[in-house]
């Protein structure tokens, strides 16, 4: 009976959290189109998020390309289908692996950063200080960060995809002596807009989710340093879950369009 009560309470907390997050998202859309626009801060956040994540995304993308090719090659070799390697790598990386892995990395790197930064600003009353000076901290801190993650993630994903395919090429070149031009020709031959467009659209949603949850957790952080840690941690956990849900919905919707 006690356990049922606990589950019931947890479910209520979860629903409350979803409700608050939805309200927060609603406020974001309302504030985004209201003047004055914080363009300078938006650009600063884009630079901060894009530039600082580039190295991590590059390294991860490169290793994924290498490992993915090394793992797949023996199997394809068994069936005499090594020539399909560029097609397989490009489609799987562009459609799925590139966006989701990059988004997960950014959830850890950017989402937790936003959660911790805004959380500590809340705890040290910096957000209150902005409010009492007659400014709108939501617009300055939240809107700019969510927009920055929304627009930077697709760029990071493109970059990560390109590096991953390059990593794959290096393995192919070492093992099979394939030239760079031939490999990239095969990569682009196998890709269609139908692969690229849905994958790109969903990265905007991934970026939005990372920014939204990070800002929500930080902005609504409870008092104390423990609250800051919790905000950063829960931002990553919540975002990661949300990313997989968005990915599932995106694949589901894309398949409906393919069937049509």
């Amino acid at each position, binding site marked *: 009976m006690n356990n049922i009560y606990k589950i019931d309470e947890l479910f209520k907390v979860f629903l409350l959290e979803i409700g608050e997050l939805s309200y927060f998202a609603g406020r974001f859309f309302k504030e985004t189109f209201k003047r004055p626009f914080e363009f300078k801060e938006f650009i600063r956040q884009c630079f901060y998020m894009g530039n600082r994540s580039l190295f991590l995304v590059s390294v991860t993308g490169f290793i994924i390309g290498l490992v993915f090719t090394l793992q797949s090659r023996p199997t394809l070799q068994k069936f005499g289908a090594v020539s399909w390697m560029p097609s397989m790598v490009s489609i799987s990386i562009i459609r799925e692996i590139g966006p989701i892995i990059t988004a997960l990395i950014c959830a850890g790197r950017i989402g937790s950063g936003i959660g911790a930064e805004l959380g500590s600003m809340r705890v040290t009353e910096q957000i209150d200080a902005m409010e009492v000076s*007659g400014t709108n901290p939501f617009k300055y801190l939240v809107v700019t960060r969510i927009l920055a993650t929304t627009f930077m993630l697709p760029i990071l994903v493109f970059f990560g995809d390109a590096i991953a395919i390059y990593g794959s090429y290096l393995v192919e070149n070492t093992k099979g002596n394939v030239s760079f031009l031939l490999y990239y020709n095969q990569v682009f031959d196998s890709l269609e807009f139908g692969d690229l467009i849905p994958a790109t659209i969903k990265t905007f949603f991934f970026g939005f989710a990372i920014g939204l949850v990070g800002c929500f957790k930080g902005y609504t952080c409870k008092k104390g340093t423990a609250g800051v840690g919790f905000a950063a941690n829960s931002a990553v956990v919540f975002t990661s879950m949300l990313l997989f849900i968005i990915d599932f919905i995106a694949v589901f919707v894309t398949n409906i369009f393919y069937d049509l």
Partner: protein
Amino acid sequence: MNTAIEHQKPIIEINDLQKSFGDNHVLDGFNMCLNEGENLVVMGKSGSGKSVMIKCLIGLEEPDSGLILVMGKNINELKQDELDELRTEIGFLFQGSALYDSMSVLENLEFPLRRHKKKFGTIKDTKPLVMEALESVGLVHTLNLMPEALSGGMKRRIALARTLILRPKIILYDEPTTGLDPITSKEILLLMKSIQNKYNTSSIIITHDVNCAKMISNRMIILVDGINYAEGTFEELSTSNDPKIRDFFN
């Protein structure tokens, strides 16, 4: 009490202010009035609702009930734009200074200004205001430093400069000397006094510090159990026989 101040019109009025957090009734019918040019010190035990009261005053906390009039305007009935406009007339010095740690001292001071362009002009025009505010607190040389490079006392002074830059008519101080050594505390108090003389501000000072109250107050309120338990000058209250009041001065 200073009779000249007493006859001036009230700039802030609070009537029957109530605020609870769950079952905890923090403010339970609090009444207060701040006259123009007056320094009003509010003393009370930790958790007695002093900070909550000034946060209600500036719209950071929403009261459960009660009337708050600031310069004749009912805070609870103002739209967001009107509240933002009114907030330029009220400065707030936070207990922990609350400097924006990702911004330099210059940027910290410019931040409130660029949101009120109509009142202060563009950033280029406001540079003299920044310098003047820094001069008022004697820290012009810190212009390009980051908050992490400043001591506790310097942070408090810069926060005061940031509060002053909007040229407020009212300044709310939330424990201005807490966490500072006696010498720096005295410096801050002297600074508060000189600011009041220079800019003719009215102030509410939340404090536990008896020296602060003695040095700066025109009038004092003792907050106990969510109500204004006692009111009077420092001399009147410090010589009171009421044990609840005496506790604050012992």
